């Protein structure tokens, strides 16, 4: 859990003193070592750009100093406390959001809901499999784990997926069983954040697909609405992904990865590759041009330039998959 710091400016505001007065108090604290008024660097404060930022214990020490000196206006400690509580809550929620984001590659939309795999749910909750099983058992006993509402198996698969409501129930079930305060908070925040965070992920995936469409328009403009191979105006101009979109989603919106082709050449290339479902790379396209258009030196040069610009790429399934690069149909189609 990250430590929360309050800036000197903010603390001075809370304590109803000026920044100058705060600095004087700091000097007073530092003047006599090991006396009643002590602030420890690292524990009570840190220094950023020569200015102190305080932890809750540091802020409390300054507050106590003011309380002991009647010449200062007695500030309300509730304001500072509330600020730290809110800040900690937001920080923890950011951690939970990050955990959900990093463990949602199984995200899928079916039956009007979003579902995650068992392994992703276990990872988000940060629990062990045996403890997870214990929670599921307790939820079944409470009528809170019902097939097709809280969990399901999709046709043709033995894998179990858990709905958002199912994840909510598991998180709340864990919160109620766990005794550690920080783990309780984590589970509560997972229950609170799972749905809004999935909504944000969905929006981001949709936005990425709009970016791809926008990049395709830019590619056509760049290539002056001509087929880059034949350099001719054609009725059906298509924008081809040099690294196929489905297998290399991370560079799908990159202009360097796009080339305008006549649909005849586009279809011919994919047939040459063995079908539209086969993954293709820029290397494949260069080989294709070598074979069919070896005279097109400027195109080969341009392709080589794009290859260098795009760098080495790993296809999906090679261990670096991310939920934000899921195909749109996975999170929009209702099977």
């Amino acid at each position, binding site marked *: 859990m990250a430590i929360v710091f309050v800036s000197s400016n903010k603390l001075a505001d809370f304590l109803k003193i000026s920044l100058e007065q705060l600095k004087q108090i700091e000097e007073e604290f530092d003047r006599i070592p090991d006396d009643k008024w002590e602030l420890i660097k690292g524990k009570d404060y840190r220094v950023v750009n020569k200015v102190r930022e305080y932890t809750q214990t540091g802020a409390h020490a300054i507050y106590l100093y003011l309380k002991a000196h009647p010449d200062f206006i007695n500030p309300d400690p509730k304001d500072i406390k509330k600020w730290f509580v809110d800040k900690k809550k937001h920080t923890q929620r950011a951690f939970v959001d990050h955990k959900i984001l990093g463990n949602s590659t199984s995200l899928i939309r079916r039956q009007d809901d979003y579902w995650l795999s068992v392994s992703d749910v276990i990872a988000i909750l940060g629990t062990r499999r045996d403890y997870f099983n214990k929670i599921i058992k307790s939820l079944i006993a409470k009528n809170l*784990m019902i097939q*097709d509402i809280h969990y399901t198996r999709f046709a043709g698969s033995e894998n179990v997926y858990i709905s958002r409501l199912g994840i909510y129930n598991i998180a709340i079930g864990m919160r109620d069983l766990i005794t550690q305060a920080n783990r309780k908070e984590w589970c509560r925040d997972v229950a609170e954040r*799972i749905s809004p965070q999935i909504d944000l992920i969905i929006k981001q995936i949709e936005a990425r697909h709009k970016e791809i469409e926008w990049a395709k328009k830019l590619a056509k403009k760049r290539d002056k609405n001509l087929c880059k191979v034949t350099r001719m105006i054609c009725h059906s101009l298509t924008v081809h992904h040099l690294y196929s979109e489905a297998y290399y989603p991370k560079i799908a919106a990159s202009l360097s990865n796009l080339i305008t082709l006549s649909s005849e050449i586009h279809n011919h290339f994919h047939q040459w590759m063995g079908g539209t479902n086969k993954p293709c790379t820029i290397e494949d396209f260069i080989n294709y041009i070598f074979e069919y258009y070896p005279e097109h030196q400027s195109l080969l040069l341009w392709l080589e330039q794009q290859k260098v610009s795009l760098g080495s790429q790993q296809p999906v399934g090679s261990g670096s998959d991310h939920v934000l690069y899921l195909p749109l149909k996975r999170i929009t189609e209702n099977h």
Partner: protein
Amino acid sequence: MPATKKSASSKPKSTASKSTSKTPTVVPHAAVIAAVQTEIERLVTTSDLPRATLEAFSQFILRQVYPPQPLSIKELQKAIYQHFEVANATELKKSGSFKLASSGLGKLSLSDPEDCKKIYRRLIGVLPEEEGEVGYGCINGINIFKYDLPWRVFGLDPEKATDEDIKTAYRNLSKIYHPDIPNTGDDKIFQKINIYYKSLTEKFEQWQ
């Protein structure tokens, strides 16, 4: 308690919902309940009438005579706020948990008692006026189209029931609600029973 056959009428009776918040709460006197129990015992020993049928029938009669008092809108709201650990409607609307838990219920207004009841049914429990409900879709006093309470529907205690008990209860219900059973067979009800059976016997240890 074993399952009771659905009544001849296809729609649930709405006598309970006719009660207004102004009607004083009338609960059956302990002596009435004791007298009914004594009569059931007598009938079980002196006739072939099954205990479960008698108990179900007595509950039905008691509900007609002493309809349960529905919760007021304020009581419903209070229960919902407590469930989500919030103080008021503004906080509730901001709660991610509430948004998630109420998803699929459509646009909800917390000033509408029916909307509050929808939330209550899904998240808190059985509404007092719907406890022991009888009619179409009601098994063991639970309307399966309003509540998903498999253990109650199967008449089993989750702490004590064995896999064999679940199987037996499922078979008993199937004998009534399987679509092939004349008069009482019902596809919609049987589908629910099937889902409940799968849920109660789920081998979650093998989930992958």
